[in-house]
């Protein structure tokens, strides 16, 4: 403060107008800085995975969990076949009207849709086997059944894979109890 040293009055380097501009600049920068520090520029929309890439399997501890992961893999496989996202296919299969709209927009018929869903179901069996979540003893008959399954049933399996595993257990009869044990 040279003014004080020289014995004169200390003067602001800016007039009221300059102070007003400086205060406005400071307030703006403070607000922008605070919001940036609080994550104001960090939002990114949730990434939608490529359905053709393998989806990691966690250890299923029950039939329900196995069915859950199986449905996810099957949806991925069918979506990959059709060249759409898993999310779009899931919404399309929610009801009959949505399915018809989806098929019309994609320019496909029921046969093509069935073929894609069957491919998805077979991929789910492959994924389950690869992850060690399903024994080849179950996988082989499952695959041959799924390759011929009608469209409506294929969609039902995507909705709830539990029925499939329950059917397999019933089909295996007394050996069906082994299925639960075949889960890792």
């Amino acid at each position, binding site marked *: 403060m040279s003014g004080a040293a020289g014995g004169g009055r200390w003067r602001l380097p800016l007039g009221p107008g300059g102070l007003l501009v400086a205060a*406005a600049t400071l307030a703006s*920068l403070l607000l*922008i800085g605070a919001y940036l520090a609080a994550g104001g520029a960090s939002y990114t*929309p*949730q990434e939608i995975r490529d359905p053709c890439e393998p989806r990691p399997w966690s250890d299923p501890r029950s039939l329900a969990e196995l069915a859950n992961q199986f449905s996810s893999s099957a949806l991925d496989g069918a979506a990959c076949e059709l060249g759409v996202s898993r999310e779009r296919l899931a919404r399309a299969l929610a*009801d009959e009207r949505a399915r018809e709209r989806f098929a019309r927009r994609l320019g496909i018929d029921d046969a093509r849709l069935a073929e894609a869903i069957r491919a998805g179901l077979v991929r789910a069996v492959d994924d389950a086997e690869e992850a060690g979540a399903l024994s080849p003893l179950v996988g082989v008959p499952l695959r041959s059944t799924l390759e011929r399954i009608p469209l409506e049933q294929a969609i039902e399996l*995507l909705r*709830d894979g539990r029925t499939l595993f329950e059917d397999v257990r019933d089909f295996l009869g007394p050996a069906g109890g082994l299925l639960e044990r075949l889960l890792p």
Partner: protein
Amino acid sequence: MTRRPRASALALAVGLVLADSSVVVLALPEIYRDLDAGVTGASWVLISFNLALALAALPAALLARRLGPGLTAALGLAAFAGAGLACGVAGSLSTLIVARCVQGVGGAAAVTAALELLPASVGSERGAARLWAAAGATGAALGPAVGGALTELVSWQAVFLLQAPAALAAATPILAVARDEMATRIVPAGAPTGRPHLAANLALAMVSAAIAAALFLLVLLLIEGWRLTPIAAAAVVSAMPAAALLGGRIGARVAPARPRATAGAILVAGGLAGLALLPKAEVALTLPPQALVGVGLALVLSALTETALAGRAPQAIHGGWTIAARHAGVVIGLLVMTPLFVSDIAEQRRDAIDAGTAVILDARVSPLLKLELADRLTDRLEREQGRVPTIGPAFEPLPEDPEDRAAVVRLRGELQDQLDRGATHAFTASFLFAALLGLASLVPIGLAREVEL
């Protein structure tokens, strides 16, 4: 008639007309749902009024010089009131837009003529210019809150229908002036008109574009993005006029116009950048940026309007130029910002639908429940017609199984958070663009040679 009631009536007329450029902002979502129009269509309810006001301001000022300001103001207010009634009973978007154009033309006549009438009631040209600018700023600032409250408590039609009696109340004292003018046939002398203040008017246009965009986008964010009711949104955006009052007081302590205009433009730009960078979907976080925009708009609009009018005659003509500049700015702001925002919100909606489905599909609930939830979510999104939905109802009834129930409750919170953050993010580019417009106004403010009063 004494001077004071006439000055009050003129201030009411100016406030009422300029409030109309923003009064309808909070009613827009109701209007576009009611009249089956999109955001772009409904934005023309705002744009048409401001465009008509901008285009008619100068011809209206010339008419006031030729016909007499009292008669021009009275006729303008009558047209404004009549068109307000037509807006209130409009059954289609096109009828509403045509009526809004008539309102704009009538409003332009009333506002520019008022500037010619005010010096006789106030005592000085400078006092008249200050009252005129203050009445306009108050109207523009209070407009959204009043409009939002009326929309919520009565209907969007009430916003227009109530303008008619208010306009007629303002016109009554002015009729005496009109009668005198017609009896004496004395109209103001046709003094030569000086050139308008280009830099101040250009800066006014740019700042107005930024402020209009701020208000329009903030209202859409609050109502469409965060699902606030119009009255709650009105309460939130009241922070801006409240801060503008403070800005007016600060401005009164600083005489030179250039630093006031500079500080105001910086604050408007800073506040808009803050709105672009909201870290969370929380109403409280909009208050600091709104405070900056409010203080900034009071500083910059009054400084630039005073500069554009200072020492220039006739006042009505130069007032016409400032009205034309401000409302042309509003129109440009809305025309540029609406498509930008609409494409952003459409993209955000697609992202939100996909993100929502992904969250559901990855949840640890049964596949059957997943597809059911995806179905119900799609249904909610369709029913909300483009609005970011309240997704709670899509999750009801909650599953009976305790594990599934806990997972679904967690899922609901996660999903709503995704949607809210996505909706907030959809406004980022538009707010940033508006901030740049505000900042760009510093160029004409800096270049102006005659900005000092």
